[in-house]
């Protein structure tokens, strides 16, 4: 075991896979010499060579589209979009080709690849550096979409993503890149994609969250506990496929659910989970399934961000509302 933060855990997963499999290629903007603007790929070029870890021209459609070409030829590209708000030029490639090539060719050509994207707000950044685009990918057929919230999951999910026979969007909660340290096994392990994790078991309400919101919910839970509210916290971990069973079982037990996402509200992941609850556990409900999400506004620049980001206080207030319904 070794103490790692999320950045180190991702780096470790890449290092292990690069050592093991020569078909893995890592590229993107600044991922080579600099090791990425967040240092996620630090030293990988030194260890594995500039032929495999390198800086590409600054063009996201080109990065994803060339990765698709490489994947067809049997390579395994792991590409980085530098920030959430920079992935949009690549959406045509992701939606029109990455998610469709297997189906279009009836399995003749498959495009296993990983697109890594640091995402989310709360880091006092410029515009386009704080977005939560997971709904776009979750809504796109043919993709898998995962989001770790701990160093342990970050390593295990990335290894699973790289070994997956289908393309995976791997969203990295950059706000907690270095905020959480944890003992992580040094050897290789993987976490199955599509499985949520019950982080704390509770009786009165189910809270579903993922990414950086997990930590905020956990802070709210301290207060809830003081008031005698027992929260069952589920880390969704996988936006698609989504883990219906874990959500159902939990809501059948608690009868109440709050979904917390930083992403904007309308047509977002929280809406999807509420639909699942309606389909799977309608008769167990004792309160309307509730969501606490970002506004349907642009995430504000840093001085206004405090209004948008979900604080533990707001989360606690919402938990109380649902529990006392």
């Amino acid at each position, binding site marked *: 075991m070794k103490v790692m933060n999320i950045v180190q855990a991702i780096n470790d997963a890449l290092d292990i896979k690069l050592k093991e499999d020569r078909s893995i290629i890592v590229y993107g903007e600044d991922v080579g010499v600099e090791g990425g603007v967040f240092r996620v790929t630090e030293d990988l070029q030194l260890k594995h060579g500039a032929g495999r870890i390198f800086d590409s021209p600054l063009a996201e459609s080109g990065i994803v*589209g060339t990765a698709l070409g490489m994947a067809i030829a*049997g390579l395994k590209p792991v590409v980085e979009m530098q920030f959430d708000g920079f992935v949009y030029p690549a959406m045509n490639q992701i939606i029109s080709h990455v998610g469709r090539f297997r189906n279009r060719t009836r399995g003749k050509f498959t495009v296993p690849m990983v697109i890594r994207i640091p995402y989310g707000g709360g880091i006092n950044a410029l515009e386009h550096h704080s977005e939560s685009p997971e709904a776009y990918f979750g809504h796109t057929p043919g993709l898998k979409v995962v989001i770790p919230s701990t160093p342990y999951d970050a390593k295990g999910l990335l290894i699973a993503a790289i070994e997956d026979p289908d393309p995976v969007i791997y969203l990295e909660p950059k706000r907690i890149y270095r905020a959480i340290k944890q003992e992580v096994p040094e050897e290789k392990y993987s976490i199955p994609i599509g499985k949520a994790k019950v982080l704390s078991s509770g009786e009165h309400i189910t809270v579903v969250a993922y990414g950086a919101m997990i930590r905020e919910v956990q802070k709210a839970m301290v207060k809830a506990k003081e008031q005698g509210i027992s929260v069952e916290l589920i880390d969704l971990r996988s936006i698609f496929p989504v883990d219906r069973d874990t959500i159902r079982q939990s809501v059948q037990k608690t009868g109440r659910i709050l979904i917390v996402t930083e992403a904007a509200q309308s047509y977002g992941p929280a809406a999807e989970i509420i639909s699942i609850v309606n389909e799977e556990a309608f008769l167990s409900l004792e309160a309307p399934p509730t969501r606490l999400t970002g506004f349907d506004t642009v995430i504000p620049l840093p001085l206004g961000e405090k209004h948008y980001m979900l604080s533990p206080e707001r989360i606690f207030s919402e938990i109380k509302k649902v529990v006392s319904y």
Partner: protein
Amino acid sequence: MFDIQSLEKYKPIDNKMYQVMDNDGNVMLKDWKTALSDDQIVKAYKDLLFERTVDNMAVSYQRQGRMFTYPPNLGQEAIHIAAGQVIKEEDWLAPAFRELGVWLAKGVSLWEIFLYFKGNEDGSKFLKANRMLPVSVPIASQLVHAAGLGFAMKYNKEEAAVFGFVGDGGTSEGDFHEALNFAAVWDAPVVFVVQNNQFAISVPLKMQTRSINLAVKGLAYDVSSILVDGNDFFAMHDVLSFAREYVLKENRPFLIEAKTFRRGAHTTSDDPTRYRTKEEEEAWEAKDPALRLQKYLVNKGLWDPKDEAELVAQYKKQIDTEFEKAESYQEYKLDDVFGFMYETMPDELKRQKNMYENFLNMDSRFHGNDGKMDSRFHGNDGRMDTHSQGDNGISGGAK
């Protein structure tokens, strides 16, 4: 012959176009020789006739309602036949959607092409064709795939070139420029072929760009480029052969603008009379690639046009057989909708499929064998007729 010195003679920046034959099939270049044997040239002409016959037949199948939208190739076949002769089995082909002759040369079966345009993804399996990507509808997006394939060939130390096709309109897309740039920066062996057929559906080239030609767009990326008469089989063959050798030897991409004219419609849903003049069409008819190659062969005593009608009749029979094969292809199954999205079907897709299957199996009285609702239970608007639903004991099973 086209060689490295020819690149100096035909600079895109000077708007010089490489051309071998005039409109009457006479060789215009002094000391020009072809590497092709007489037999190969005759075969090229026959292949061109075949492509043209397929095209005619396809348009008529579509008109008969036996096939959906189809993009005709008429007028652009010299590019396809030349590329088909140059591209090797180990080479990759990233097509757009108007390169019929190249697909056939790559080993795609005609019935698969018909099946695809009849609306079945199985037509993109290309069972006998190696290293050919499916049709790419989002314009120019396939060219970045070609650049990635080029990287992979180099990475794997394979002696194989990549050919990426695009149209004139596609050169306005960002992916065209990103592809040229990535391939150049990565020293990737990719031949980019722009079929400049003068129109992007209805939009003429002059609305597309202020560049003096499209080949010139390669220069800024340090990609060697050439403007070629795309209606001249020999010019296309010379340049494509050179390009393949060049990208493999130099480890550099190469850009070809093949100047041609789409004599047919963009697709069978398009009406070119809305945006093209008769004079324009007639001017290009005089430069038709089939006519020029035929005249060349006749001049050399290698071809008798009298034989053509019989050959075309024979092709038509062959094409009909292929079309019937596509028509009698197995029914589109529900598994085909769900089964290829992922290697292992996620539970969510299984659930959705199950729900639909439950609906289909709900009550066999409401279904024909084909899985469609019995039309007797529908109003004209496609909704269930609630009056007749289930009350008259009709068995909709066998019809």
